[in-house]
């Protein structure tokens, strides 16, 4: 795929931005939440937002809005009456954040399908997802990804909220038993069914590889997401778990943004993975934690801020609980990337990540 020029990519992003702003802030198409917000804000984004640089006029999107408000406030008027999916975010406890959607996940994962090779994920074959299913977008997304490649997918659920609770309560034996229970089921599927593509989390992948020889079991490609993967850990996965012969596709993303794919690793990367947002539908910025209007320099650490720009969902400047290194554009992406993502403040405190 040819890489657009940075100018072309920026123009495409600004066009998308203006269209999405128009959509969400127009009474004929917009959703109740943003229409009410604009009425109170005292300014009209349709006349003031022209380029992505203008997005800083919006305050940070508050995740409480996704917890406290009923999901229908996010339904664009143009979609009124169409049933929607309700997706929830990962491992949080208490009232989860919820995002509604219709087709976005299909768009994201159809696009992602073009970035994975047939060698690693043969078409018209079988997939296994071992990870958080339940109310998560990922569950339908992975099945859609398999389907667009002519494949079908087996599922093994892992409830990250339960794991988080066990670890917080220091019930490590229980957490281990639960992980074993999940891995047992995957090992059973691999023993009795033909599977070539695997989606899972790095920790579960490691645990599965301790149990079965995943190459001999038929796995040729692994698509991973959901957690911190520092370079040494990535190297361990590539060299020792996948033994340099199974394709590895790390991704970054969540229910709110979608899926940021990584560029293939080169020796010069030293196993540092860089992810690129699915622009123009989403933007990832790495910002100064104390002055979030400002982007950090290239190759410097900062907090991850994400913006979602689709007709189904507009979410400006959401501050993720992650920090990352800002990276330069790289083929096939003409925009900034984020690298070595880890929980925000990881250097200062211990963060429960569980089996992710």
């Amino acid at each position, binding site marked *: 795929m040819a890489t657009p020029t940075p100018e072309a990519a920026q123009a495409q992003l600004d066009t998308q931005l203006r269209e999405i702003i128009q959509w969400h802030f127009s009474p004929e198409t917009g959703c109740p939440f943003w229409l009410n917000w604009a009425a109170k804000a005292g300014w009209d984004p349709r006349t003031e937002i022209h380029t992505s640089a203008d997005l800083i006029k919006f305050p940070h999107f508050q995740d409480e809005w996704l917890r406290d408000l009923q999901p229908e406030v996010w339904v664009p008027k143009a979609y009124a009456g169409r049933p929607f999916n309700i997706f929830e975010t990962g491992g949080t406890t208490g009232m989860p954040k919820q995002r509604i959607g219709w087709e976005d996940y299909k768009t994201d994962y159809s696009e992602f399908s073009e970035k994975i090779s047939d060698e690693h994920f043969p078409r018209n074959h079988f997939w296994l997802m071992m990870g958080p299913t339940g109310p998560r977008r990922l569950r339908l997304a992975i099945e859609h990804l398999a389907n667009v490649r002519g494949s079908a997918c087996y599922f093994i659920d892992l409830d990250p909220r339960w794991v988080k609770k066990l670890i917080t309560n220091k019930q490590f034996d229980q957490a281990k038993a639960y992980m074993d229970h999940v891995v047992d089921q995957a090992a059973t599927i691999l023993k009795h069914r033909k599977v070539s593509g695997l989606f899972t989390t790095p920790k579960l992948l490691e645990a599965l590889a301790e149990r079965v020889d995943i190459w001999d079991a038929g796995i040729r490609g692994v698509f991973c997401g959901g957690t911190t993967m*520092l*370079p*040494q*850990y990535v190297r*361990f996965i590539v060299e*020792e*778990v996948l033994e340099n012969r199974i394709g590895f596709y790390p991704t970054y993303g969540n229910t709110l943004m979608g899926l940021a794919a990584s560029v293939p690793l080169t020796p010069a990367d*030293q*196993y540092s993975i860089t992810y690129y947002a699915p622009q123009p539908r989403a933007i990832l910025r790495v910002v100064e934690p104390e002055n979030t209007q400002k982007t950090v320099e290239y190759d410097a650490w900062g907090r991850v801020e994400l913006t979602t720009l689709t007709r189904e969902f507009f979410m400006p400047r959401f501050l993720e609980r992650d920090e990352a290194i800002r990276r330069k554009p790289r083929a096939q992406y003409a925009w900034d990337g984020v690298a070595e993502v880890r929980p925000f403040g990881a250097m200062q405190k211990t963060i429960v990540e569980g089996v992710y």
Partner: protein
Amino acid sequence: MSDLSTLPHLPALRRGKPYESLEKNEVLDHGSGKAVAVVSQVNAGILKKDLQRIGEGRAALRKFTVAQLVEISAKAGDLFLSGTLPLGDRGHMQSADDYVRTLSGTSGLPHVMVRRNMTKIHYALTHVGTVLNGLSRGLPMEVIDRGYGEQSGAAVSYYPTTQALGLVMPSNSPAVNSLWLPAIALKTPVIIKPGREEPWTPFRLIQAFIAAGAPPEAFGFYPTDHEGSGEIMRLCGRALIFGDANTVAQYRDNPKFSVHGPGFSKILIGDDKIENWPEYIDLMVSSIAENGGRSCVNASAVVVPKYAREIAQALSAKLGPVLPLGPADEGARLSGFANPKMADHIDAAIDEGLKTPGAQDVTALHREGGRKMLFEGGTYLRPTIIQCDSFEHPLSNREFMCPYASVVEVPQNEMLGKIGSSLVVTAITEDPAFTAELLDSPLIERLNLGPITTMKISWDQPHEGNMFEFLYRRRSIERA
């Protein structure tokens, strides 16, 4: 700032093979804060992966007889003490003097103490045969080579309890490494997680063993995190655990683990000898303060039937004025803290204890300034003698990583009921009844009868677990 790429790099050793990780920790000089080396850090998964193949390490050792490995150990001892050995994988070499300076710089131990620790390790390595003889009660070591044989006319057979010995090492005193040394002669590979501030001693010991002819596959050197340490303890069939009282309590009753926690070592004086107490002051001082007060065999309590006040005063008069000296000073008696937070924590814990009525920091009367002090950029804790009214006081039975002891007055007939578990007890008495009580006590691991420093250990007698019995178990055997 040092250029990290030119500093020595200590790789992980995976079955003896160097492995450079993309994640490295710096080891810092405790005074200047400058990095003096970088150490590759590995994740728990690497340990799990390697431990699946630990049988290779054992197979490599099995090609030798115990006698050959005893010889290799002795040679390794000489190399450790005075040889020049590889320091990492960037071509750096380390002489014995380099080792002393580097370890002193990062651990805060003065040179004189590092050398004393080296001598202990050297002794242990050059006397492995004697040690094994003591630990196995004279078992001919051919029995270990063949798996069976005869001892005192009886058929005997021993089998290994584990494929590897796991070690999660502390950073506080290099001599603790002497505990694992007999494992090599006993054909047991070691999987070592070095202390964060003290990778030097295990790395140098491994290099000495390899240079002496031991198979590299028998050595695992894995600087790792908490999860990795957990895997070492979980996956090695046998492991040594070092830590505070809470940590070791979790493992104490599990036969897979040999626990090495605080020693709570003590000096007891009987009614028959107490009038001569001034004669024993120097013995008490050395038992409390030798090796910077960092060993589990350092006395942390002096228990007497009377004269507690006078003894506390006399000890304080000797120890109170002791000040930190430069690391190369032969007279240095205090050790700096590689992690100054630990000194803060200890200082605060003693002050907190003093808030409970019934205790006095007697050394405070004999020193100027506080207990904690900064010297040439390093953090030190000065000796502390606390006179406690009873063993119920929270400071009466504590152990800290500095010269620290309580002095407690307890009637002789109540002493054994009060002192609790003690790694070493030096009992200064000739009273036959009291001696018999001491010999019967299950609370004492090593008993010194008479004026013997608590620091004295006998390599051929176990004072904290028997490594031979830990690594081998006897079975019944019959051959047709």
